[in-house]
């Protein structure tokens, strides 16, 4: 049964990995990547490393893959252009891949463990404890100092990102939902002909609350107060 599950997950993992590279649509590629991560997590579960499985799903699927999706959707990258030289560069890539494979095989073949290594481990896995709990025990007791320091570093990173990017310009348009709902006046539905452009249809900008100036046609969609 375990073997069946292993081959199932491993097969899907390899198939989705191939699809990541070959998919024409970059969004599909990222979705295949997510599928691959889930299958890898399942393989970790089979191996008895449930902590790694959780981390893989939380970190890679929850954060990294979503970030990839953002980048793919927000940046205007022409992936077809990027992939144009695939055929031409394939032999070169194959050579590099072959060398890497050879080196990996060498590592696996020549791998030796010092016989006394197992006995020398500073933090052996305690018996009758699953590995999440074992990690938690060592992280929150012996290494609490280092753990808290790492937390402080992450906090500093967060402060730094905010300090360097958050801007409080006087002209910033913030959505004030309460005001938006309480706004007097009427809302009209307009039928916009396809390709007519907003400026020509006569949609007017909502009046600013402080200084009601003459409403003027705008070139972007008005959505309540600002955006």
């Amino acid at each position, binding site marked *: 049964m375990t073997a069946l599950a292993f081959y199932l997950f491993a097969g899907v993992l390899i198939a989705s990995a191939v699809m990541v590279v070959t998919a024409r649509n970059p969004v599909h590629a990222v979705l295949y990547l997510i599928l691959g991560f889930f299958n890898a997590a399942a393989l970790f579960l089979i191996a008895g490393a449930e902590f790694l499985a959780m981390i893989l799903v939380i970190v890679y699927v929850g954060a990294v893959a979503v970030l990839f999706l953002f980048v793919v959707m927000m940046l205007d990258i022409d992936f077809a252009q990027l992939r144009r030289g695939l055929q031409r560069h394939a032999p070169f890539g194959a050579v590099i891949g072959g060398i890497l494979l050879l080196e990996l095989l060498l590592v696996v073949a020549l791998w030796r463990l010092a016989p006394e290594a197992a006995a020398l481990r500073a933090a052996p896995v305690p018996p009758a404890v699953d590995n999440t709990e074992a990690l938690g025990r060592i992280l929150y007791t012996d*290494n609490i100092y*280092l753990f808290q320091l790492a937390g402080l570093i992450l906090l500093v990173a967060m402060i730094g990102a905010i300090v360097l990017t958050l801007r409080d310009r006087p002209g910033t348009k913030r959505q004030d939902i309460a005001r938006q709902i309480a706004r007097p006046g009427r809302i009209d539905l307009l039928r916009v002909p396809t390709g007519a452009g907003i400026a020509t249809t006569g949609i007017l900008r909502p009046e600013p609350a402080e200084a009601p100036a003459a409403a003027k046609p705008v070139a972007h969609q008005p959505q309540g107060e600002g955006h």
Partner: protein
Amino acid sequence: MNWTLALPEIALAVSAMAILVGGVLPRRDTTFPAHIAALGALLLAAALTLAQDRGLAFGGQYVADGFSTFAKLLILFGAAAGLALAQEWNARQGIARFEFPVLILFATTGMMVMVSAHDLIALYLGLELLSLPLYVIAAFDRDNPRSAEAGLKYFVLGALASGLLLYGAALVYGFAGTTRFDRLAQLLADPARVSAGVVAGMVFVLAGLAFKVAAVPFHMWTPDVYEGAPTSVTAFFAAAPKVAAFALLARVLTGPFGGLEAQWQQVLHLAALGSMVLGALAALGQQNIKRLMAYSSIGHVGFALIGLAVGGEAGLRGTLLYLAIYMVMTLGVFGVLLCMRRGGRAVEGIGDLAGLGRTDPALALAMAVFMFSMAGVPPLAGFFGKLYALLPAVQGGFWTLAVVGVLASVVSAYYYLRIVKVMYFDAPLPAFDARPVAVSVVVAGAGLFTTFFFLFPAPLIAAAQAAVAALMG
């Protein structure tokens, strides 16, 4: 679990977080109260450091001894002075925000962790906790492309250095099987167990730390970052982090890698020689005074490295004394630089100091004292710093280091004295804007220390001696 030993660090980190919350929540500008609270937190940490017990904590990852107390007090003093200098300047420059003191506090926590590190992981985390806020405050004037460039450059090169250090630490761990300093020292004391892997790892760790102190092969970032970062930030960079990195170097070299002295001595020898020569020659043609101070700091790092390269109690004592004196001088110099503001705009050319002797005699006198002291003119403090750094080299027979050191200080005297000449003999430019009070206080204090150090050198020398004894004992 004797976590109370780490009370200074804990207090500093907690107060930094409290100031952060206190700065975010109110809907008004909290920059000034945040600065004052940060100064209070540094004072509290200093008091706790003085009252600290000695010993190991957190399973041997943290050490508190006489050496760490000495270095921490220096660091806290440097950070407090840097913060006091920065407040008014940032406000006038329009970059004052409450995150600045918070980041300084976190950086100071990182420095204290570095000084008390007794484990390679703690060393690395402390270094990162120091570096990350520094990257951010280098780019603090974010609308100024030079500041943003400085931050980015510092970040990229700093990340590279962290990578080197981490790689070295991994090699050491892989070949030695432990990251604890005392166990490493025990292991490496036996020459039979020193493998090439450990030596390579140690060299990588040294490279990462040399980057932090800006010693010669790893100095490239210094001029650009010093010039690009806001002057208030440069003042902070030049003082406390150098002390922390040197203290860490001293601890790592005498503790875990004490058995590898023959190997690291060569590395430090070259780094010290290169730093002194480059610091002396590259500064000659500079027109921007912050850039000049950057090259000057590289030169001073070379002098401080002499003591480490020579080793022994006298050498280490020389390094500590040099650092303490250099920190005070450099804070004074940057205090003067922070006064360089004409018509509401900060100026930083050497030519802008022209005629300061007539427009602001007190400031010019202080600057002249610092310049003479940095050049090593007796009886100012800088002379004693150089004396205590070079004397062990002469006594230990390190003639190259001593001769190059003397020659480098002769060459560097040219550009220090050129500033004095510009201040007193060039046609005066319009006067600078009024000085902030805090800056005047710091400059005056540093000036008095530099001038009258020769009358009362004993307490500092005794403190450095005790610190070194605690480290070596």
